[in-house]
């Protein structure tokens, strides 16, 4: 026991947990789980350098640590602030956080087209969920919204920049998963846009993953575009023998046909094992996959309101314990 690393005790919205030193507030919250977890639109645990940008994960640190109990004056980005022993954090229980987050949602939406009815991401869109949970029902923005042309980046991917929230996840993905650096941000401020340096086609073997990391409908799969609303498709865990990637994926079925293939995402929408372009774009035949069974969608979202298999509600086990 004595050899164990000393763990840090943190309390978030009244719930206490012990975590390894170096853990961020967000990840500590995720270890606790439930509705104390701040929303995160830009942080992505497997992408180095991600986080800090969207500011949806802001929390109030009401007690700095056991040693230095002073509260932190500013709201902190929970995805990039590491915990201290004895730290106390307020997420939803802080009025300041609720107000600031409402502000952030308003900022994210004010130039957003909100064309959900014709957006492939609808139903599994993190911005929809965020707006639904933390946003206001009316916009105060009365000016023209920013618009960009849609562009093809490579054979399989469509970039609809108008919907982009500049989370930079695709930039980190392109930089970290693929060898060539052809994908980046051009211009600055609210004119900034994702660019592939004059529409260079991104034909890297893993570039398709930018679609999965994108929290909104800015990067979509051209082999699936407009085929179906996601909630009319049935997700199945599937695997295949692939020499480029783990071959572990989710196939989204319409009847007996595979409509699209994605990587497996956890309840925070994060992919732990990225898949290659071949699996994603070219294997649309059920013979190419070993279908393991229905995919459980853990995220609370428009999508899980439909006919997906939900996890067994936790309260039964809690009741048993009590």
């Amino acid at each position, binding site marked *: 026991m004595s050899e164990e690393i000393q763990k840090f005790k943190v309390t978030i919205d009244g719930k206490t947990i012990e975590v390894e030193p170096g853990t961020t507030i967000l990840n500590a919250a995720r270890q606790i789980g439930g509705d104390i977890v701040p929303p995160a639109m830009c942080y992505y645990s497997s992408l180095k350098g991600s*986080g*800090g*940008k*969207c*500011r*949806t994960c*802001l929390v109030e640190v009401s007690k700095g640590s056991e040693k230095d109990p002073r509260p932190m*004056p*500013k*709201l902190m*980005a929970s995805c*990039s602030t590491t915990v201290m022993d004895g730290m106390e954090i307020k997420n939803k229980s802080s009025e300041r956080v609720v*107000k*600031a987050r409402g*502000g*952030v949602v*308003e*900022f*994210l939406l*004010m*130039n957003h087209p909100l064309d959900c009815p014709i957006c492939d991401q609808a139903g599994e869109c993190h911005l929809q969920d965020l707006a639904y949970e933390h946003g206001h029902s009316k916009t*105060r*923005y009365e*000016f023209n919204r920013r618009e960009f042309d849609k562009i093809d980046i490579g054979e399989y991917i469509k970039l609809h920049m108008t919907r982009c*929230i*500049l989370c*930079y996840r695709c930039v980190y993905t392109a930089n970290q998963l693929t060898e060539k650096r052809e994908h*980046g*941000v051009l*211009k*600055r*401020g*609210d*004119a*900034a846009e994702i660019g592939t340096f004059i529409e260079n086609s991104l034909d890297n073997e893993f570039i398709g993953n930018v679609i999965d990391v994108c929290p909104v409908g800015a990067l979509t799969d051209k082999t699936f575009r407009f085929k179906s609303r996601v909630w009319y498709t049935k997700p199945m865990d599937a695997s295949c023998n692939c020499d480029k990637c783990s071959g572990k994926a989710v196939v989204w079925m319409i009847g007996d046909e595979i409509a699209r293939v994605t990587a497996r995402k956890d309840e925070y929408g994060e992919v732990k094992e990225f898949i290659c372009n071949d699996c994603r774009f070219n294997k649309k035949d059920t013979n190419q996959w070993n279908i393991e069974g229905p995919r459980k969608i853990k995220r609370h979202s428009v999508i899980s309101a439909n006919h997906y298999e939900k996890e067994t509600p936790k309260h039964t086990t809690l009741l048993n314990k009590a």
Partner: protein
Amino acid sequence: MTKKLLLENVHIEGINSYDVYRKNGGYSAVEKALKKMSPDDIVEEVKKSGLRGRGGAGFPTGMKWSFLAKPEGVPRHLLCNADESEPGTFKDRYLMEKIPHLLIEGMILSSFALGANQSYIYIRGEYMFVLRILEKAIAEAYANGWLGKNILGSGFDLDLSVTPGAGAYICGEETALIESLEGNRGNPRMKPPFPAVQGLWQRPTVVNNVETIAAVVPIVNNGGDEYAKIGIGRSTGTKLISASGNINNPGVYEIELGLSVEEFIYSEEYCGGIKNGKKIKACVPGGSSVPILPHFLITKTAESNDRLMTYESLAEGGFATGSMLGSGGFIVYDEDQCIVRNTWNFSRFYHHESCGQCSPCREGTGWMEKVLHRLENGRGTMEDIDLLWDIQGNIEGNTICPLGDAAAWPVAAAIRHFREEFEWHVTNPNEATKRNYGLISEKVFEKVNA
């Protein structure tokens, strides 16, 4: 006459050349330092001097230097921030243009103190002509043995070069500057880690303003204690002020900290009073990012103390009735100036300069600009004023770097002190479009004197 430490020799013919600079005592501080002092001695003198960063935040320089991590075998860097892009600030340009060797001498001293062997001056892209001046001066310094290997036989090596930015205000933020210098997009980094631990190429790095580095020269020459004798309290030494707006003598002045604002604005030695016999309406004392002061809070604080040119006195009263010394960009407005227009103009700047990384600043700055533009043109509503207040509040404190705050504060201060003028634009739409005129809020004043 005030004591001048930086601009003392600026009017000497040819002082921008090595020979004249040297003849007038130039590089004597380097001689003194490399022959008689250790790096720690210099850090000690800078600490004693009480020198505070002249780039805007006013952080004690000696303390900043002592935070520099010194891991074995890892090179350290000194970066000079010559990005000077804050509206109303043009003092660094003046110094570099007129007396470039002063900066180079300061760079040698500071690099020696910090143990940096490769130092950089990062200069804004619009200052291309100044870059040429610096390059010439650096070449002269190399030619005369002040830069390069084994300077003055001390065993200390220093290479110095100038790198231009591409014209982005944000690259003046120290971590964006580092990114830009590394050849990346100038996006500010998240802190921690701080540059003192992981800066340029992940190495320990100090970033200092041009004027801060130049001030090390007189500190080494005369000693930190002598420097600290000038000024009041924690505001020691001299400060370059860029004075502009409706004054008789706009320009760059070196003042002793502690000079009264009254004297600075009205004496012939400095601004020489308001132009065309007009009355003063407002003043932005520290560059566009700091809160604007209405006429009754400029020369006196809300507590009726004399307002002085110090970090503390300009901030007296907090944001409710005070402002900040900032970068020393002193802008004066006469009675004919329109505060709404000015606020819109500043807002336009921050909108244009936001790097776009974090949502509140990326979206909020553009939104504020649009609402202000509408108000200024007589198309706004009373709700717009509250909306602006709300937007700035949602930006302030919620962003990665202080540009968000810098965009929010001028808007907040303008509404706080000049709300009537915003309202006037709503109730007099036709005149608003035609006239450049408004009213002043005396509310704060009345409250204080009640």
